[in-house]
């Protein structure tokens, strides 16, 4: 099957076309303000290079940072009806507490806390206050709101309150876009509620962007369905994206890491993606990126939905080198002005690219312009760069054992020596478009993350029902039943809680079902 992956970054939109495991062609186009134009150009370019007609495409996956950027920059956010179920609990901390003002202002001031929710063991905190929800539904209509976020206490244990609330809201507002927190976040009410509100605020924009992708691809004559990358290395059907835009956050680094693993044929490795300003270090375990275990801050808002565990260090191809009492590199960079400001390009700023060029390890710009740099300076700067990368790699490892390191990204040329802690250093073919390759090879996944009580039903039964639910979710998302495999089972017992309460996470992935990718 012919698979196409397109990764929309801040600067470039990269495309790769694969036939099974083989990369047929790759293409880079500049990212456009409207996203779609860049995608069309990249797709045209990569098809032209491969010589294939667009009708040969079996699946197309798009990875984009558009929604992350929109949220952080508070652009085109929808106002949201924020509804929390849990009174009389949680009253001490109202929704959106701790949000930066400029983002909270975009969300508006429709915030309600109504009675209901669950205890950790499934008991009800209070009966669901349906009258208050009906009133909220009417008020939402009167206010003309189009998007709502519903968060109930312990909805990861029991989703019924959120589901019933959605029914009530929808009965008054059939077209309301509703985000239920249990579909996105984990235990941790404020963080999960924040994630749900964030998602709801992007509902309008995501519907618009997905529609523009669809129109653009149809105009090109593409008939295959298209998908959008999530940040765990799996995909969503285009229709689902409009409902879960936050799940695309940080899909860029995830695609790079998955692509690096695929191109190097490694299931377990550290991936070092060196760009112009930073190096992103991530860990691939079992072919998928390791997830962050701590609360993640996005634009000053604390959330806890799954994100890849990425360490960014201020070292890239444009990082500024200063030689004072100590030699320092970065964290500031000349960025996209590299081609005018770096010494090898006739500029006046000493960058890491100048060091690499002068040392003769990479052919960048005009080496004559940096011939005056002393051997001592080159030596110390090269030492420093490798030291920074070695430290970053070491911080991401979980043990002292050496692991293979895969190098991708344009700045990979800076690495000219073996790195401490790396069993081997691999620069795979097509590493410049590892992100697009990672998008192309994405699979379909299903996940369960909830608190289960082992007492009574027993551990095996609990794990089995969680796995079945994860499989069902994967199939619903478009996975082929016969290809499903369980890639992760995690059990974390809760401290101080009786009844054998355990937080269970199960993740299942599979290939696209044939019916999904018909032409």
């Amino acid at each position, binding site marked *: 099957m012919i698979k196409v992956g397109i990764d929309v970054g801040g600067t470039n939109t990269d495309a790769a076309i694969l036939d099974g495991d083989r990369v047929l062609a790759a293409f880079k186009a500049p990212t456009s303000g409207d996203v779609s134009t860049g995608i069309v150009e990249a797709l045209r370019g990569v098809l032209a290079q491969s010589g294939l007609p667009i009708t040969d495409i079996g699946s197309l996956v798009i990875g984009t940072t558009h929604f992350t950027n929109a949220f952080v920059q508070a652009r085109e956010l929808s106002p949201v009806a924020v509804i929390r179920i849990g009174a009389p609990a949680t009253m001490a901390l109202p929704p959106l*507490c701790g949000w930066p003002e400029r983002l909270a202002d975009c969300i508006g001031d429709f915030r309600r806390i109504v009675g209901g929710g669950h205890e*950790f063991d499934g008991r009800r905190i209070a009966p669901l206050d349906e009258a208050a929800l009906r009133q909220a539904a009417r008020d939402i209509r009167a206010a003309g709101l189009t998007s709502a976020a519903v968060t109930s206490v312990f909805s990861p244990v029991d989703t019924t309150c959120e589901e019933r609330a959605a029914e009530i809201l929808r009965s008054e507002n059939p077209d309301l876009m509703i985000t239920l927190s249990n579909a996105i976040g984990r235990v*941790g009410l404020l963080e999960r509620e924040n994630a749900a509100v964030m998602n709801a605020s992007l509902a309008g924009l995501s519907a618009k962007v997905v529609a523009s992708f669809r129109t653009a691809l149809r105009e090109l004559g593409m008939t295959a369905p298209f998908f959008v990358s999530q940040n765990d290395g799996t995909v969503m059907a285009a229709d689902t994206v409009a409902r879960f835009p936050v799940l695309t956050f940080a899909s860029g680094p995830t695609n790079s890491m998955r692509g690096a693993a695929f191109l190097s044929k490694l299931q377990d490795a550290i991936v070092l993606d060196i760009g112009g300003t930073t190096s992103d270090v991530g860990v691939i375990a079992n072919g998928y990126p390791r997830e962050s275990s701590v609360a993640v801050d996005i634009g000053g808002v604390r959330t806890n939905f799954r994100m890849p565990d990425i360490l960014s260090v201020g070292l890239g191809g444009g990082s500024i080198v200063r030689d004072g009492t100590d030699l320092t590199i970065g964290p500031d960079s000349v960025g996209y002005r590299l081609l005018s400001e770096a010494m090898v390009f006739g500029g006046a700023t000493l960058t890491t690219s100048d060091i690499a060029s002068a040392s003769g390890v990479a052919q960048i710009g005009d080496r004559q312009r940096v011939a005056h740099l002393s051997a001592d300076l080159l030596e110390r700067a090269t030492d420093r760069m490798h030291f920074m990368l070695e430290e970053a790699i070491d911080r991401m490892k979980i*043990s002292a054992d050496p692991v293979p390191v895969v190098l991708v990204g344009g700045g990979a040329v800076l690495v000219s020596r073996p790195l401490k802690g790396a069993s081997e250093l691999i620069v795979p073919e097509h590493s410049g478009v590892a992100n697009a390759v990672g998008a192309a090879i994405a699979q379909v996944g299903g996940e369960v993350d909830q608190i289960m009580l082992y007492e009574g039903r027993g551990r095996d039964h609990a794990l089995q029902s969680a796995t079945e639910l994860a499989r069902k979710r994967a199939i619903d998302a478009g996975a082929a039943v016969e290809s499903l495999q369980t890639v992760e089972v995690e059990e974390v*017992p809760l401290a*101080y*809680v009786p009844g054998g309460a355990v937080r269970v996470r199960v993740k299942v992935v599979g290939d696209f079902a044939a019916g999904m990718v018909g032409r």
Partner: protein
Amino acid sequence: MIFRREHIQDLARGAAFLGAGGGGDPYVGCMLLEQAMLTTPEIRIISVDEVPDDALVVPTAMMGAPTVLIEKLPNGDEARLALQRMEQEVGRPAFAVMPGEIGGLAALLPLVLAARTGLPVVDADAIGRAVPALQMTSFHVHGLPASPVTLADVHGNSAVVRAKDDQSSEWLARSISVAMGATCQFCFCPMTGAELRRGAVRDTITNAIGIGRAIRLARAEKSGAVDGLLNYLRGTEHYRWATLLYDGKVVDLKRETRAGWAVGTIKMEPIAPFEGKLEVVFQNEHLIVRQDGQMKASVPDVIALLDRETAQPITTEGVRYGQRLKVVATSSPAVMRTPAGLEVIGPRAFGFEEDFVPVEVLNSLQGPA
């Protein structure tokens, strides 16, 4: 002193330091205090000496499972209800509230109650750091019982425990907190001003704020985040024997949950000029630190792990392989170093073979003390 919103982060940071690896994530506590101080922008922190001999002082805190605490957030009125029950139980109104322990989240909650009631907070606690159980306090050492304990939940339910000893108080209160949905607010060990002067560890709130501020100010400078902290500590009464024990990176980490405790060992290798291998043993809090097998500090003295760059205190659950950390140890309040104090919180109380030796003796510290 007058406590204002700008002190919240300093207090939280200082309380994380005195948490000695335990005390939990203070985030929810900070948010509760931020919220309460929107309507009450000033809280009075009073010294132990400002409390009349016969006035009632009530320690307060939260009890429950950390996982539940971040999900089923408080109503906001529980602590006031628990305090009312205590006042009824004792038969007179409270003059002030105070923290039971100054480590982590527990340091912030009495201020939330103070903001909601208008009562002052006594600048003291029962230990001068974080501890894993009620009986490991200076109150216990001085024979002040934890009983009566009053508990309240989000619904306005409350309970009173009168127990024959501190262990029973802890057991019964824990069972009730589970029935209350594994999280509740409680008050315990009501005492008079005279008893407070006998049993409490003084000045620990202002010390925690000072520690947090010292870290923040030193962080703003180019280097030596830890130097600023050590300078501050050396000027305090309880923590004046303070030293940077080690600078290194985590090379091995073992942890497990045993009988509800987070138990484990952190192994570190040095960054020059430090030498030798370091080992930190923890049970909720850091208990003992050894360098090449030699004990360098132990409970009740405070052992804190700080991020090498920012000096942010790290809890045991936040430690990861590969982290660069500085290890700082300080003396603990004198009462915890007495034989009676060591009996409840010395190394032997945690099953170690070693006797307690003060950090200043172990490290031959010469100081301004």
